[in-house]
C-alpha cells in the first residue's frame, strides 16, 4: 500500500468519526457536561476540605487527565463500536482497511476532542479555582497531553480487541476500562499510598509516569526516575501489544464468523 493510500485510509476514518461525533447528542455530554461537572465537584471538594493550593492542583490534574483519557479512548473504541451498533462491520473489513488506519484515524479525532476539552477545563480551573494548569509551560503541557493521549489510544485499542473477540457483550469495557486506570494510576493520590502488589501494577501503567512528571512542575517530588522516558517506553510496548491483540481478534472473528454475526 502506498503512503498516499495509507494516509487516505486514515483520513477516511477521521472524516467519518468527526461527522458521526458532530451528529451525536451524547457528544455534548462526553465533551462538556461530565468533564465540567467532574472539575467543578472535585474543585469544590478541595475547598470544603481546605486543601493547600498544591494539594488542590494535585487532585485537579488527576481530574483533568481522567476526562481527557476518557474522551479520547471512547473515540478510539468508536472505531469498532460505531460499526457494531450500525451492523456495518463487514463492509468495513471488506474494504482494504487495516486496523492501523482505524485506530490511528479515530485517535486523531480523539486527540482533537481531548485537546479542546483540555483547554476548556484549563480555563474553568483558572476561573473557578485559580488553578493554572498551563503554568509549567507549553512543552510540559504537550508531554502531559501526549501521555494522556497515548494511554487513551492503548485502552481504546484493547477495548476494540475485546469487542472483536466477544462481540457486543464486551461493549461495557468501553466505559468501564477508564475507571480501572482511575484506581491504579494515582489520579487522586500518589501511588506510594497503594499497598505493595497494587503499587507494582500502578508502576506498569504509563499514565502513572506522565502524571508524576507533570505534578513535579507543581512542587511534588517525583516518585519515579526518568518518568517521561519510562512512560513513553511503556506506551510503545503496550501500543504494539494492543494492536497485535486487535489484529489477532479480527483474524479470529474471520475464522469463527463473528465478523458476520456482528453485521446481522
Amino acid at each position: 500500500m502506498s503512503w498516499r493510500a495509507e494516509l487516505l485510509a486514515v483520513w477516511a476514518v477521521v472524516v467519518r468519526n468527526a461527522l458521526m461525533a458532530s451528529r451525536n447528542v451524547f457528544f455534548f455530554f462526553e465533551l462538556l457536561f461530565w468533564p465540567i461537572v467532574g472539575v467543578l465537584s472535585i474543585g469544590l471538594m478541595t475547598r470544603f476540605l481546605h486543601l493547600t493550593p498544591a494539594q488542590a492542583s494535585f487532585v485537579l490534574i488527576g481530574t483533568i487527565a481522567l476526562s481527557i483519557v476518557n474522551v479520547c479512548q471512547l473515540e478510539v473504541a468508536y472505531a469498532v463500536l460505531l460499526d457494531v451498533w450500525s451492523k456495518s462491520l463487514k463492509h468495513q473489513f471488506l474494504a482494504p482497511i487495516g486496523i492501523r488506519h482505524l485506530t490511528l484515524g479515530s485517535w486523531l479525532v480523539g486527540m482533537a476532542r481531548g485537546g479542546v476539552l483540555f483547554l476548556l477545563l484549563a480555563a474553568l480551573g483558572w476561573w473557578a479555582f485559580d488553578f493554572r494548569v498551563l503554568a509549567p509551560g507549553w512543552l510540559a503541557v504537550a508531554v502531559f497531553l501526549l501521555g494522556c493521549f497515548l494511554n487513551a489510544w492503548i485502552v481504546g485499542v484493547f477495548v476494540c480487541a475485546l469487542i472483536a473477540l466477544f462481540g457486543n457483550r464486551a461493549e461495557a469495557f468501553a466505559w468501564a476500562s477508564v475507571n480501572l486506570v482511575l484506581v491504579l494510576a494515582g489520579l487522586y493520590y500518589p501511588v506510594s499510598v497503594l499497598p505493595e502488589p497494587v503499587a507494582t501494577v500502578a508502576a506498569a501503567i504509563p499514565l502513572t509516569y506522565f502524571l508524576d512528571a507533570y505534578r513535579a512542575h507543581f512542587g511534588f517530588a517525583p516518585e519515579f526516575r526518568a518518568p517521561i522516558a519510562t512512560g513513553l517506553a511503556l506506551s510503545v510496548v503496550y501500543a504494539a501489544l494492543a494492536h497485535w491483540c486487535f489484529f489477532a481478534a479480527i483474524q479470529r472473528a474471520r475464522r469463527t464468523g463473528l465478523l458476520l454475526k456482528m453485521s446481522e
Partner: protein
Amino acid sequence: MLAIDAHDVTKTFKSGWLRPTRTAALRGVSLTVPRGTIVGLLGPNGAGKTTLLSILATLLTPDSGSVRVLGHDVVRDAARLRRRLNMASGRPSFLWSLRVGEIVAFYGRLYGLSGSKLRRRVDELIELCELGANRRTPYSELSTGLKQRVALAKSLVNDPELLFLDEPTLGLDPDVSVRVRRHIADLRSQRGITIVLTTHYMREADELCDEIAFIKAGRILARGTPAELKRRIRLGDVIALRLDPPAVPWLGEAPGVLRCRAVDGWVECTVDGAEKRLPDLLRALSAEGIAVRNVRVREPELEDVFVELAR
C-alpha cells in the same frame, strides 16, 4: 480465464463453551466461475450460500480447501484481493447518521480516491443508482429500496472486477426489483464485471444468470445453465387444464402422467412429454364427457427445479 477457482472448501461453525456444537456449513464445495459471467448460488435457507459468498469475499476463512479469486489466494493474499472486489447485501446496513453521499465518499477514500476524482465518482454512482434526490438524506431515514441502492452504489465505488450480490432484491417492490435487475445485467454487459449472486427468486436467477449452482446442506448438488438444469432434472412438461367438472380422480393414473395437482381452479398435470400426451388426455377426457374449457402447456420453471432439488 477464471474469476473464481475453489476446490474442496469446507467450513464448520462452532458454538457454545461448555457443550460446543458444530455445524458444517460447507462440506467440500468446488466452484469455478469464468470471468465476465453471472453465476447464481441457489439453495434453501441454511444451505451454505452466504458462507460460500463470504469466504470468496475474504470475510470468512475456510477450514480447508483452496480458494483463488482473481488469481489471489483468499487467505494469504486477502489484502490485495480486497481492492479488486466488492459486495452488496440485500440486508444492507451503514452508519445511520451518515448521509448517502458521505457513505459513498467514505468507502471511496478507503479505495484510494480523493479530491475531484472522488467527487466525480460519487456523483456518477449517485446518478447511476438514482439517489440524486436523497444525496443529503441520513441513512437511517431511507426506505428499504433506497438503502439497497446505497449498498449497490457503495459496491461499485472501486469499479470492482468481481461483485458479490447477496439477495440483491430482497424485500424490494416489483418495479424497483426490475430496475435493480436491469442494473445488474448492465454491469456485466457494459463493464464486464463478473457477478456472483445469491437469490431466493427463481425468476431473477433465470433472467440474470449464465450459470446456476444449486447448494444444499453445504454441497453443490447441481450446476449448469438454467436450461440445462431443467433438462437434467427431467421434470417433464406441465399441462394445465380447466375442466368441467373440475375434479377428475383418474387423471393422475393416466399413461405418461407423472403427477397431478389442483392449482387455482386448474388441474396441473406433469407429463413425460406434452406433445405426445396432450392429444391422448384430451381424447380420454372427451370420451368421459368432461368438458375442457382451457388448456395451457409450459416447460418446467427454475422454481420446479428448486423444489425438486430441495426435496
